[in-house]
């Protein structure tokens, strides 16, 4: 940039009509040397120099000599280009564009005597006189350090800007005095405005803030302007440019400048898009709320408990189950409420949970209600760990099963009582029939004997039925205690086969046992094992073709022992397959063989097998070889 000035001619300019130019020159020179300006020129600490028409340094002051590190008097006469490499005469001339007679050069290179470079700013003025022709006067300033300081500041500024842009922070400034707002590019970007769009920033922003949030969004600015607070933040919703979605914005406003009287005149702010963070926060909040309402509304008693048993939080259902108010329940702990006999087993499982051996466990145990009554509860326990994987909180769920157990007991009692009542008259019936049969003294007619036989058979059948019903009920209520221990299986099988030999004789079949390894062991309850074998063997005998062989095979299948009983005979009808193990299921009377038995045998057998930790199944393909198999575990299933 240059400023335009007109310059009165310097003293000493030739005028038309002068005869002795040289005398004039000398005079002028002497006059000049003695003038205060010349003195000033020489003494001034500001580097001044005059460049002649030949491009050489005409005059310069000591400051200039110092600047370029030349000894006194050594600089005059040198080509300007020696110290200002860019400043050829042409170049200098070109800097000043008429009608201007001077200019400011913002940066040109200067070179010292030692060859070091520096950055200079210069004021350049040009004039022409008759004696010396075109001259340029330069006032120099070393701006090397300035420039580097400025460069440093600019770099820092750039880095800061980059950081701000990288963080997506939009800075803006409001000057109350001038009532202007300055925004950075990022601010425009957040509002989805083009960089050069001429838009009234204020109105644009205001118009896009959610109406419900406008007051919240403006409050920080008012508060800072009022000087109430140094820094205020707020979150508000901003509509996207297309008007389709809301974004969450966070603004931090702070006081930037106060005037002499302390009134705030400038505030600045940083704005960032926190939509993503908000959605995560919202999702988290919803999740917490969901858990909370589940917890509160659950029909199952739930409690959050510390690792040492104290209640942290309880839901209404558990308070009701124990008969305490929430307040009172929170004062007590689980150990106090547990029946002493059930405490040990609970603690044992809990230790395993804490150690991480198991992730959860279930237990039926007794608790004391607030009135001292015993409650049977089905307890389920899981554990939450903290960031360092240490036990943090325990979640306990309790279902009150007192009533369920009572009903179950009632049912058992009922069945027992009924069985007893049924057996009593049966005793007399069977007893009488037996006696009748053994009465040789009064021989019966064939017909009478036949009737006697029928009565006996059916009496026996009734007897078996009652036994089975009782067994079945006991097993389904899981009342039947099984005493499992590891033992050799083969002897049990041998024993079972021996006990069923009468069946074999009766149906004209043979049992053959294959046991490759006599040392095989498994967990079993001997009595129940016999019951299972008796059932399978009698079934096989009943359904086997007369004269055939029934094979009993024992094999090791890894984690268990498998026993299978195979007989030749009719294939089990496909329609019956699903119902085979159900109570009172018997194949359709289409089969010719008379079926005796209660119809409960297989269902009881299945229950026994499953309660002793095994599995049961059958194969009855076309071709008539039916196999029933069951397994007994090698390891204790409990």
């Amino acid at each position, binding site marked *: 940039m240059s400023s335009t000035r007109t310059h009165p001619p310097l003293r000493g300019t030739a005028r038309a009509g002068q005869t002795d130019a040289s005398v004039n020159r000398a005079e002028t020179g002497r006059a000049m040397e003695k003038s205060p300006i010349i003195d000033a020129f020489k003494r001034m600490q500001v580097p001044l120099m005059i460049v002649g028409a030949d491009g050489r340094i005409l005059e310069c002051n000591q400051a200039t000599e110092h600047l370029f590190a030349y000894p006194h008097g050594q600089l005059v006469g040198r080509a300007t280009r020696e110290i200002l490499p860019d400043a050829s005469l042409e170049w200098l001339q070109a800097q000043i564009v008429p009608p201007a007679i001077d200019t400011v050069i913002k940066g040109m290179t200067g070179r010292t005597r030692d060859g070091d470079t520096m950055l200079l700013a210069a004021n350049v003025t040009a004039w022409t006189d008759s004696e010396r022709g075109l001259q340029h006067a330069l006032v120099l300033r070393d701006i090397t350090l300035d420039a580097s300081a400025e460069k440093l500041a600019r770099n820092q500024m750039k880095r800061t800007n980059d950081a701000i842009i990288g963080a997506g922070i939009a800075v803006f400034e409001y000057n109350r005095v001038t009532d202007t707002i300055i925004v950075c590019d990022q601010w425009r970007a957040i509002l989805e405005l083009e960089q050069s769009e001429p838009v009234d920033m204020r109105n644009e922003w205001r118009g896009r803030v959610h109406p419900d949030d406008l007051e919240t969004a403006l409050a920080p600015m008012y508060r800072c302007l009022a000087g109430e607070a140094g820094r205020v933040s707020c979150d508000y919703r901003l509509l996207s440019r297309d008007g389709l979605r809301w974004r969450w914005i966070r603004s931090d406003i702070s006081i930037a400048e106060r005037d002499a009287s302390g009134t705030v005149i400038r505030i600045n702010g940083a704005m960032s898009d926190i939509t993503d963070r908000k959605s995560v926060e919202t999702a988290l909040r919803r999740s917490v709320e969901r858990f909370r309402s589940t917890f509160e509304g659950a029909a199952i008693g739930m409690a959050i408990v510390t690792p040492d048993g104290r209640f942290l939080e309880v839901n209404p259902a558990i308070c009701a189950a124990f008969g305490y108010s929430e307040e009172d329940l929170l004062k007590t702990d689980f150990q106090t409420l547990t029946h002493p006999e059930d405490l040990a087993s609970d603690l044992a499982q809990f230790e395993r949970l804490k150690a991480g051996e198991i992730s959860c466990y279930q237990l039926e145990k007794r608790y004391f209600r607030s009135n001292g009554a015993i409650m049977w509860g089905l307890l389920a326990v899981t554990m939450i760990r903290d960031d360092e994987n240490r036990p943090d909180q325990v979640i306990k769920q309790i279902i009150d099963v007192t009533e369920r157990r009572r009903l179950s007991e009632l049912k058992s009692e009922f069945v027992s009582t009924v*069985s*007893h009542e049924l*057996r009593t008259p049966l*005793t007399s019936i069977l*007893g*009488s029939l037996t*006696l009748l049969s*053994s009465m040789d003294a009064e021989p019966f007619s064939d017909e009478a004997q036949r009737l006697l036989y029928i009565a006996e058979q059916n009496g026996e059948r009734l007897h078996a039925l009652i*036994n089975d019903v009782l067994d079945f009920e006991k097993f389904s209520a899981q009342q039947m205690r099984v005493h499992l221990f590891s033992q050799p299986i083969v002897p049990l099988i041998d024993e079972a086969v021996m006990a069923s030999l009468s069946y074999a004789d009766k149906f004209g079949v043979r049992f053959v046992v294959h046991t490759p390894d006599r040392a095989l062991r498994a967990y079993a309850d001997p009595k129940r094992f016999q019951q299972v074998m008796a059932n399978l063997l009698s079934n096989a005998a009943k359904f086997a073709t007369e004269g055939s062989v029934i094979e009993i095979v024992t094999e090791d299948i890894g984690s268990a022992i498998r026993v299978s009983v195979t007989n030749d005979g009719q294939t089990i009808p496909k329609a019956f397959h699903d119902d085979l193990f159900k109570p009172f299921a018997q194949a359709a009377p289409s089969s010719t063989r008379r079926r005796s038995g209660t119809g409960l045998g297989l269902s009881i057998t299945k229950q026994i097998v499953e309660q002793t930790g095994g599995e049961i199944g059958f194969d009855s393909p076309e071709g008539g070889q039916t196999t029933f198999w069951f397994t007994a575990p090698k390891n204790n299933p409990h």
Partner: protein
Amino acid sequence: MRILAVDDEPFALEVLSMLVINSGYPDIVAAPSAGAALERITEAPEPFQCIFLDIMMPVMEGIEFCDLVRRLPGYDTCQIIMLTAMNDRKYMDQAYEAGANDYVIKPFDANDIESRLNAVAKALS
């Protein structure tokens, strides 16, 4: 062998008595209750050697009665066989604890009764 049968069910009592006689042991006395049984015991010139005792009886149950009989003089070696239609293990345990020697589940097998009687007779001789 002197035998006593105690059961509150009259038919059961009758059938049992006939079965015992049929098995070859004619000396059998029947009592329909614990009270009546006690009377028979008091009247008897010599202690009974074998007692069939039903568990489920009104007023005094078989187990209680068993306990009582064991305390009576001359009844420490008597063979007491409990009878019941309940095959609950807990009754079995209680019976043995009260001093019973054996246990039969109704309806009983006639052969079973006979073999037990034979075993008792053999043990006594």
